[in-house]
């Protein structure tokens, strides 16, 4: 059965405002060489989805640049491939833009033409910040086998109150049929099934939902569509058991990034046979370590020159760490330069930052010190 993909690139833009000031959530850099959307795109490609529409609203320059023709995901294809779906503003209806942070349902309205022109029977919809390696093929099989109208991917997760308030909690019966759904509950803790914000449904079903939502002025997929239809539609919960990073804030971004230093996490995310994670190819040379370098418990991409000390850190492509510099417990994004004798601790450096010689910056793991893109410190 053929399946097409839809990815929402802007839905969680307000979660990490520091990192999404100049970019979509989809293009937030993650894990030395990736962007958030790479995980979702790779999950789709690895499951045989060969046409993907990415719904964008604003700030999508970096995303356009990252995706390019889609060839790095083998999505440069005449039959489908990857298409960016920008917002549908017209010269006659300037006010058609409903809100600055549109919901999934609102963004889907601008994609109806795209969706209706696809030929696939099923559609898989996913948020862009789903850091996991899920076999969507298996989820689609489950969807078909159970005769579901809509299938939601869920993961059993132990939540703090802060995390629960940023997640959709799914409750289901013993047959995995969803019977309740809590939207961003307050004061909830403990182990619950959270929604991964990945859904499978018939393409025609999706079009009907969008039409109905327009007519009724519905805006939320979870509150207006799922909750209202718990009895009239068969909504199933597909339980995913692999690794999932739930990134709802800068401190969670920091914590989840640091989890990548754990070999088991890397194995669960990158080490699954035939399910690699693709990203934009940059043609960086291998990373060069010079004679005085000292690196421990760190993950580094290609293209760096390391002459100083790096410990417990995530180093993106093209970073320079000069001699005598010390980078500890930090995330340093693409092409940043750490000057001689400088010292970083619990810092998140966005792209292209220059830390001058002997500068000392320190944050705390609960409140990492964030340095915006292109800053000179």
């Amino acid at each position: 059965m053929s399946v097409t993909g839809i990815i929402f690139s802007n839905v969680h833009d307000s979660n990490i405002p520091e990192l999404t000031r100049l970019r979509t959530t989809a293009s937030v850099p993650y894990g030395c060489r990736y962007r958030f959307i790479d995980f979702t795109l790779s999950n789709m490609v690895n499951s045989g989805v060969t046409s993907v529409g990415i719904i964008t609203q604003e700030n999508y320059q970096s995303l356009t640049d990252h995706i390019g023709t889609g060839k790095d995901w083998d999505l440069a294809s005449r039959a489908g491939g990857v298409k960016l779906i920008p917002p549908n503003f017209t010269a006659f209806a300037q006010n058609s833009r409903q809100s600055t942070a549109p919901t999934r349902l609102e963004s889907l309205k601008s994609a109806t033409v795209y969706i209706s022109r696809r030929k696939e029977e099923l559609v898989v919809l996913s948020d862009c910040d789903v850091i996991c390696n899920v076999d969507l093929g298996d989820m689609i099989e489950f969807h078909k086998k159970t005769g579901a109208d809509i299938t939601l991917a869920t993961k059993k997760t132990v939540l703090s109150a802060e995390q629960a308030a940023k997640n959709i909690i799914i409750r289901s019966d013993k047959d995995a049929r969803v019977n309740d759904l809590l939207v961003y509950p307050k004061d909830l803790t403990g182990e619950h099934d959270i929604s991964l914000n990945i859904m499978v449904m018939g393409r025609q079903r999706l079009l009907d939902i969008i039409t109905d939502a327009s007519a009724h002025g519905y805006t939320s997929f979870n509150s207006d569509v799922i909750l209202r239809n718990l009895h009239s539609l068969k909504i199933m919960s597909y339980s995913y058991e692999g690794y999932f990073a739930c990134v709802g804030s800068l401190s969670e971004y920091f914590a989840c990034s640091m989890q990548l230093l754990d070999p088991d996490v890397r194995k669960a995310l990158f080490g699954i046979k035939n399910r690699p994670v693709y990203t934009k190819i940059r043609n960086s040379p291998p990373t060069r370590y010079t004679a005085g370098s000292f690196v421990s418990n760190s993950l580094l991409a290609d293209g760096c020159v390391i002459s100083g000390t790096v410990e417990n850190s995530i180093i993106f492509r093209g970073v320079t760490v000069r001699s005598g510099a010390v980078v500890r417990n930090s995330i340093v994004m693409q092409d940043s330069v750490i000057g001689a004798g400088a010292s970083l601790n619990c810092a998140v450096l966005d792209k292209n930052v220059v830390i001058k010689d002997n500068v000392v910056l320190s944050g705390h793991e609960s409140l990492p010190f964030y340095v915006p893109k292109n800053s000179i410190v």
Partner: protein
Amino acid sequence: MLQKKECVAMLLAGGQGSRLYNLTEKTAKPAVPFGGKYRIIDFTLSNCVNSGIDTVGVLTQYQPYVLNEYIGNGQPWDLDKTYGGVKLLPPYQRSNGAYWYRGTANAIYQNLGFVERYDPDYVLILSGDHIYKMDYSDMLRYHREKGADCTIAVIDVPLAEASRFGIMNTEPDGKIYEFEEKPPVPKSTKASMGIYIFGTGVLKKYLAEDDANPSSANDFGKNVIPAMLASGAKMYAYPFTGYWKDVGTVQSLWEANMDLIGEHPALDLRTPERRIFSRNATRPPHFIGRDGKVENSLITEGCEIYGTVINSVLFGGVKVGAGAVVSDSVIFEETEISEGATVDHSILDCRIKVGKNCVIGAPVSEGSAITLLGADMTVDDGVKVPAGTMSSDLSKEVK
């Protein structure tokens, strides 16, 4: 509708490269891995693209599978063009028979039909076994300015080594008056780099004459260039300054890899201009463990380092176990060095499993010879492979 190209490059990639031993057992020399994430041919292909040449014929003959797959449609080098791009040119059958490529000149001669399809003014002849970054468009400009029939790129080599090369003796303006192949007493230090630019008409004329000569070995250096000089053709030497290395031997391949490391490497791959492109494997970032130690080395994506790596080049997906020490070595893709093993002054091909506490090779400081292990070998725990071993002497499983 064919479009004219100003210059078409013809890249000679059919050589066996027997002095690379096991490395070219199943792979043509241009497809031999180099520098952590490249293959030798990436340098010439990237030079073409960076010089504005978008039509490249790659002449293949020996063990082509790896090379064919690697080049594919040319997409990594932006050579997947609607018109032009990179084309693989193996020997083929024609109405009057089928012939292997008998020499460098004959390989081009057999493919003049390919060249003619693009109606170029110039043909650039390249070999796929050198490591260098060069702007061919500058050489082409020189060729046009001199009004030359043929321009040969030359590089200054130390006088003591000049007798290993084809040496060009030139007038002060660069005009070549004599060519000597490996002269015992060299008159100059201008060594041919095996890079030629010909006017298309001139090339066709001399290749036809060469083909008609039954005693010719059909080689550019040995036959065509001397014949052109003898007949009074206008031939110029284009002086190239910069890094250039023939990687035809195990020793020179090792040296060229070592030239990439250090504070100021002899060949800096990180400069933004004239980038080298390659076909990328999909691997996660590399990881250095808590007790890992890496100094003066190149490490590529997918590596996991729990031991020590010094003065070495590691390709993608190499694993170095805790307590293992890799020094002065080049380790190709997916090779695994287990806990406590020592690898010194060696080249290890792809997917080798080096067992625990093995000792491969001996330190450079002891004046050891290079050790070479071929692809897919397994070396049992605790085995000692003496310095200077070439894996062709060993079985696939060393016990």
